[in-house]
């Protein structure tokens, strides 16, 4: 049996210090979430990189697709009024 028959892909998220967000650091193969968590510890925190780990089955992530990028992201390019820098501030307002 090859690995792909028995092992699933997991994405690994690490919190490097208390107060920071979990950040995606990579992925790994494991048989179940519990094992994925242990491998994440062994593969990604060998040099004291983290204080908390999340693992998520890669299949459970719903991700935007390359094909969608026109309809997803382009529309925001011509709406500069959504950015604070679009507005001219009156001189009376300092230090914004």
């Amino acid at each position, binding site marked *: 049996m090859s690995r792909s028959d028995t092992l699933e892909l997991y994405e690994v998220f690490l919190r490097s210090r208390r107060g920071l967000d979990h950040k995606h650091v990579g992925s790994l193969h494991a048989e179940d979430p519990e094992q994925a968590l242990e*491998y994440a510890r*062994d*593969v990604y925190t060998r040099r004291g990189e983290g204080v908390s780990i999340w693992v998520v089955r890669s299949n459970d992530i719903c991700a935007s697709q390359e094909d969608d990028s026109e309809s997803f992201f382009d529309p925001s390019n011509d709406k500069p009024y959504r950015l604070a820098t679009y507005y001219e501030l009156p001189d009376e307002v300092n230090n914004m």
Partner: protein
Amino acid sequence: MKDKILQYTTRLGDDSLVLGHRLSEWCRNAPFLEEDLALINVSLDYIGRARMFYTYAAELAADGRTEDDFAYLRDQREFSNLLIHELPKGDFAYTMLRQLFVDVFYNLFLPRLAESGDETLAAIAAKAIKETRYHLRRSHEWTLRFGLGTDESRQRAQRAIDQLWGYTHEMFDLDALEADLVEAGIGVDSSALKAEWEQQVSAILNEAELKLPQEEWAVRGGREGYHTENLGQLLNEMQSVHRAYPGLEW
């Protein structure tokens, strides 16, 4: 007394080094990449532990020897590790079942050594406890995976248990040296750990639907330097570089 502590510390160093080296043989040979890294982490934990014991042994010996002399310049008759640590790596089930047996043992042994009247031994044990809890978590889960997995994984795990069982008894022997150190509040009375060890191991094997062996056989001798042929081969390989290029640095 100092000489006895030196011998005791060397024993503990030998146990750690020999098992650490055995586990290192899995490097790039484990079933898959993630497990390869995980096993080598365990191996490095043991080798790190050996260094701490040998460094302390060298300090007690105070004859100019270093940790390297203990690891690389002694012959197999001078090694006093328990035999279970030197058995070959076998298949993956064999390696993990051996880990289960020693991990349960160290989870009982180290907390007691951490209360030793010898401060250095206590400090080494306190550091190693955290590692060993994680080791047990891994070997426990792998045992369940084997036992409740496929026919083949169950058979391999059961075969490993049957082959290893006779080497587990030696872990609970107490010789004159250790009895003296227990008396002095420095050593651990490992004979007192046996009942709890058996109870924990049989609970895990039950959970994995594996059987405790019924056969009564036991192999002993490691503490007196009587080893299986496996140790000679292991030392040959482990010491070859150091013996070919004494004092080489890089």
